[in-house]
């Protein structure tokens, strides 16, 4: 049966052409992409063909996705990572967990010597 791309999904799977494009841009071979995403060679081939046939449209959406990912979390969310690290440090002190990491004065985790 031929592989279909609908709503950017490869063969209806939870893998999109943008997932495939991400690995293509990273220099991965078709075989590697198939292995990483648990796709068949035919599914990777269909995704690559789809990307090639609609390059402008796909690349525009791809750039939007990459830009959103590059922005990451806003500062108020990042603060929760620091709060989580502080909880871990508190736990290490109170329960004696050996975590092997400490938090420096700037909230950056660093390995103990």
């Amino acid at each position, binding site marked *: 049966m031929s592989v279909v791309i609908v*709503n*950017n*999904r490869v063969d*209806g*799977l*939870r*893998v*999109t052409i*943008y*997932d495939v*494009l*991400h*690995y293509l841009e*990273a220099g*991965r071979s078709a075989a590697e992409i198939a292995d*990483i*995403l*648990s796709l068949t060679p035919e599914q990777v081939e269909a995704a690559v063909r789809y990307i090639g046939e609609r390059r402008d449209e796909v690349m525009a*959406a*791809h750039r*939007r*996705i990459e830009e959103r*990912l*590059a922005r*990451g*979390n806003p500062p108020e*969310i990042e603060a*929760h*990572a*620091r*709060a*989580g*690290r502080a*909880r*871990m440090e508190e*736990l*290490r002190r109170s*329960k004696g*967990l*050996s*975590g*092997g*990491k400490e938090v420096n004065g700037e909230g950056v*985790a660093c*390995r103990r010597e």
Partner: protein
Amino acid sequence: MKGLLADVNNVKQVRVLLMLLQEESRGEFWLHLGLTTPTFGELGLHPRSPDTDVWLKCQAEELLLITANRNDDGPDSLEATIRRHGTPQSLPVFTLADANRVLSERSYAELVADRLLEYLYDMGNLRGVGRLYLP
């Protein structure tokens, strides 16, 4: 929260992260959380399940989805699902910013594992935020 769920598009990355979470520097913190790591199949989900089904299952089972989720923001997207069904009590979804680097660069993967653990330790204050990007 009861556990983590690897999305179909980043099973290998989550495997790497779980390995790192069990290493010496993080192992006891990870174990202390007592989280499970069920698979799609064990939850009755399918590799073709739509975002809405996966997200609702995660909320019902108190699981944190880890996804690469590279898709446009269409009506059936994860983003739209969170907007439509999300509440202040909803568990967030972790999104890997660079799935390839998790597999290709150990230092980057360690950064992601560290950040994941930090967020897990403040999860009580992160309900309702929608998405959390890693790192």
